[in-house]
């Protein structure tokens, strides 16, 4: 099946005008499959880290949300150890008006503002709730360990 015009447009725009701290490039053999890197936002425990993600646009896209997963290990209450992300716009709050760029920006924002009240990695969330400082320390360690440039 031919690639929808929208995906082509989005890809072109991502390449031509990348969002700061985010890169996304489609695989040559599968234009629906993107290699993504997100830089850890300044001021967050993930600062100076570069996180690799994979993004896949399903057949129904944009009527259905893209599938996104962290490849780099990350210590974050809303991201489990398999890299799955708990983010409303990737689930029920998805809207076809959202795009790859907006999804990635949202993920970047999620790094700045973890939400332990809606956890995916329960132990991490518990850690963040009970002792945020210590938890942030672990996050920084993991970033240094797994996501350094």
């Amino acid at each position: 099946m031919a690639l929808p015009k929208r995906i082509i447009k989005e890809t072109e725009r991502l390449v031509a005008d990348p969002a700061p701290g985010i890169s996304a490039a489609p695989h040559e053999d599968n234009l629906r499959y993107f290699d993504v890197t997100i830089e850890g936002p300044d001021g967050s425990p993930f600062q100076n880290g570069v996180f690799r993600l994979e993004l896949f646009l399903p057949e129904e896209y944009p009527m259905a949300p893209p599938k996104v997963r962290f490849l780099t290990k990350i210590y974050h209450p809303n991201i489990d150890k398999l890299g799955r992300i708990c983010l409303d716009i990737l689930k029920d709050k998805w809207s076809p008006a959202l795009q790859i760029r907006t999804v990635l920006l949202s993920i970047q924002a999620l790094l700045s503002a973890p939400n332990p009240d809606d956890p995916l990695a329960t132990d991490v969330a518990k850690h963040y709730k009970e002792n945020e400082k210590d938890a942030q320390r672990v996050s920084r360690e993991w970033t240094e360990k797994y996501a350094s440039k």
Partner: protein
Amino acid sequence: MSNKALFFAGSDDEIDPPPVNGAASDANVSQPSTPLDPRPGSPSIAAVPEKRLFLVDSDEEDAFHSAARAPGPSVLPDDRADHSSSDAGLPCLEEAPRTSSVNSISSQLSDTRLSPAVSSPRPPPLKKQRLASPENSCHPPGMEDAYIGCIVGNAWSTVKGKGYINPGDEVLIERDALEDKTGRVKGQNKAAGDKGKKRQLTLKSMMNPQPSKKFTKRKIDAVIRLTNKAGFEFGRLPQDLSVWISRLLDLDMITFKGSTMIDCPTVLHSGADLVVSLSVYIRASAFNPPSTSGIETSKIFGLGQDTEEETILRERKTALLTLFDMLNLRPRRGAQISRDCHVSNTGSESRSERSTGKKKVKTEIVGDGEEVEVEDGEELSDNDLQLIYRKAQRNDQALGEMDPPPTFSLTLRGYQKQALLWMHSMESGEKSARDATCMHPLWTEYAFPAEPREGLIDLTEDEKPFYFNPYSGELSLEFPKSELKLKGGVLADGKMGMGKTIMLSALIHTNKDPEPVRPEDEGKKVRQLKLATLVVAPASLLLQWSEELQRSSVPGTLRVTVWHGQNRLELDALHEDDENRKSIPVVITSYGVLASEHAKLQKSNGQSSVFQIEWLRVILDEAHHCKSRTSKTARAVYALQAKRRWAVTGTPIVNKLEDLYSLLKFLNFFPWSAYPFFRSFITVPFLAHDPKAIEIVQVILESVLLRREKSMRDSNGNRIVELPAKEVSIEKLQFTPAERIIYDSIYGTAKRNFDQLNAKGLVGKNYTHVLAMLMRLRRAVLHPSLVVNPDDGSQDCSSKPKAVDLDTLIPDVLKDSNCEEGSKNAFAESVLANLANASDVECPICLDVVETPLIIPRCMHQCCRDCIVGHLTACSERGEEGRCPTCSQGPVKEIELMEVVRSKNVLEEQSPFFDSNKIQAAISLRRNDFRSSTKLDALLQNLRRLQDQDPYFRAIVFSQFTSFLSLISTALDRERLTWYRFDGTMDTKKRNAAITEFRQNERKPKILLISLKAGGVGLNLTTANHVFMMDCWWNTATEHQAIDRVHRLGQEKTVYVKHFIVEDTVEGRILQIQKRKTAIVKEAFRGTQQSGKGDSESLENLKVIFGDD
């Protein structure tokens, strides 16, 4: 030969020399026209005097019927027909022939001493009649049998021994006399149960030595004995010869003279081969009409039940055909009788042939035109029709021209002048402009072969013709002419407007003098509008007729009255007016008025002036409106009294030969106007695949019909009508998935239903139901709303679209918003301003420029229609409320969406919904409460494209479904296109208004929506040059006629026709059926079924519809 003749003359003293004959030839000379001649007025009148004559005879002779052998005049219907249609057509010589050609024929015949004996009594049949022996000759002197040929055939010996016969000896042929007794008793028994009329016929037949039914069944009675001079039987003819020769001998049709033995063994033994030469003479009595009644209405409808008389007739016919075949006699002129014809003479064979023929047709879709025409079912394909008309058109190129009188104000084209001449000559009773020396279509001409006299053939002798009717088996010595006595005809020019109205107007101006009063009419008290012409037309065309008639006349020369509507004038008043003024009165009325007037007439003592007046001329426009002979309209039309009758129609034969009947009936074209006659000579043979049926129709048409087509060329080789080109295209469409689901489910149900019925063989009984399912399917193709019940939750699509005033919308938006009032307001205004500036907006979903923007009223976000609809559908599939994709506000419903309409109207035409100060371009919003369909979208798309090319286009949209027309009109409103509607639910006034407005010259596009039933005919819509056919018709002819409303005289532009077909639907199957030559579908199939039952052909078509691929 000569000595035998002498012998005849001398010996036969028990028989009076026929004074009849002398009288007849006297009459030939002195009375060229006889008062006995039955007028072609009506079949009953024509037949009655003959019957009476005959009855008198027969009653007298009844006592000695065994002695009466003479076949008197019979009451065969075909016989009747010939009397009147072709004056000289009959062998019946009591009537003096009236034309010189006949005289000459009969005088020639008397030269050779062959002159038919008529009603001269014959000796009783003897027990052992020696047919060829002089003593037993039943011929009066002065009459002779005519030599028609020689059969050399085998025979076999029945005796053993020597000296019975030698080669070269004369052989006598003997036949056992018939046993009258059985026949008579049978006949009487039969007659007792029958009506009086028939009894006479039966009695009559008894007087002839015809084989009784019992007799015909006994093969042994076909024995033909060969005897020597001494009268001793030595041999017999073999079965294959005797079976038909015996018939002819029994019927006294032929005799054998001077037959000789060619070869035989000297010593005979039983079964020995003999070769004999039999000289066949046709007896004068053979030229008398066959004395049985062949065709009676009741018999025709009694399926397969042949009466005794019919059997005899058929045997006679078959035997004669075989004889001619054996003698190698070939018709010199007239229709060739194909071999099939011989074969199909017996009922069972023709039936079986028919069934195989049908099968053939089924497989043979792309057949050779000629062949298919023979094999065809009752329906006619276009090819057949062309073939039928071809003969009538053959000489039209050379037709002379005639100029209209000065009171006619228009100039006629060449072919119109030709038509005027033709119509003028048809009316004035002059010989038709065409050469009318046609032989009667049922007859063929043969020549008597020269008789060898003493072994020599006189080659100088002229060949004498005789005529044979292979249908009735009749023989005649007189030339059976096909002649016309009516005044009027069928003007069947083309299918499109060639100016038929104008031609008839010219005729009205040309032939305005009253008919001379015939002596027989003087006694009649008929109110006459002496000069008045009555025009009967479909209600939709009344105005057009009136306009055209006035346009074509010098003012004051024609007085047109449209006699229609509730307050119809008393026609008598018109009559009185007529005395004072010099103008020609023309009354125009509709078929509907005529039918209701006729109903009034039929009520007890009802009166209706239109039927009491004898019109000078009645013109039926679109005469195929009364093609069904049993309809009220048709009956009303037949009841009109007129001196001159014209039927005007582009399709005298819509799809059946029987369509023609009604026209002929209206024209009083005897004998074809008698239904039994038409049926037995045209319909029935056609059903039996006898090509003769077509030939007969051709000859009929040649004498009454004028038909030119736009493609025909005049004598200079120019096209008679130069019409601009016509481009027909088919746009194939694909359903949207949703439509596909709806359609498939309906189709599935219908197919299951049909399959079940079909398996039980109940389709015929539930035909109406099946048709209803089919209609539903066809509607489903057009638009889902046409099949979905309104309470299914779908919107009421026919409601008028409400345009939304932006000024009221903005406050609504403001009121709705609960936060950021200022920014919201600003945003809304900027959206609307952007709309006005027609700047491109990107759809947030497809990231493309929005084509047809839909605005979400809550937040004023915009999307493409398809994107937002897809999004909302996806939401509802997930069980969620629809939300704005951009701002997630909700809930959003599809019908709340606002559609932005950029009006393409010219700038000065401000949209009424906008304050002109505020916004420059005409832009409006409307609710997205209209659900379109594939077909509708395709139409709108085409119209938009058209508007880009031609801002003032005129288009016609045809559909069969008025409900679909309503949907289209709603959609057109939304597109802000001007439309007019023309359908059967509107009264004449409204229809006329619609047409007038549509034709008006305005600087805007206009679309006319027409339902086929109402506007398929007659209308002149040459202002338009784009035609859109929304659905397909069963009958392509109807489609063409609809298109020809536009593609006709007066059209100056190329005409574009577009058919919309949705693929993989019932429409494809309909096209398939259209392509099948056999399957121009019946009236019943088009949904106006009368009986509620389908015939086999319709069922076949249904199987195509519901069949698997």
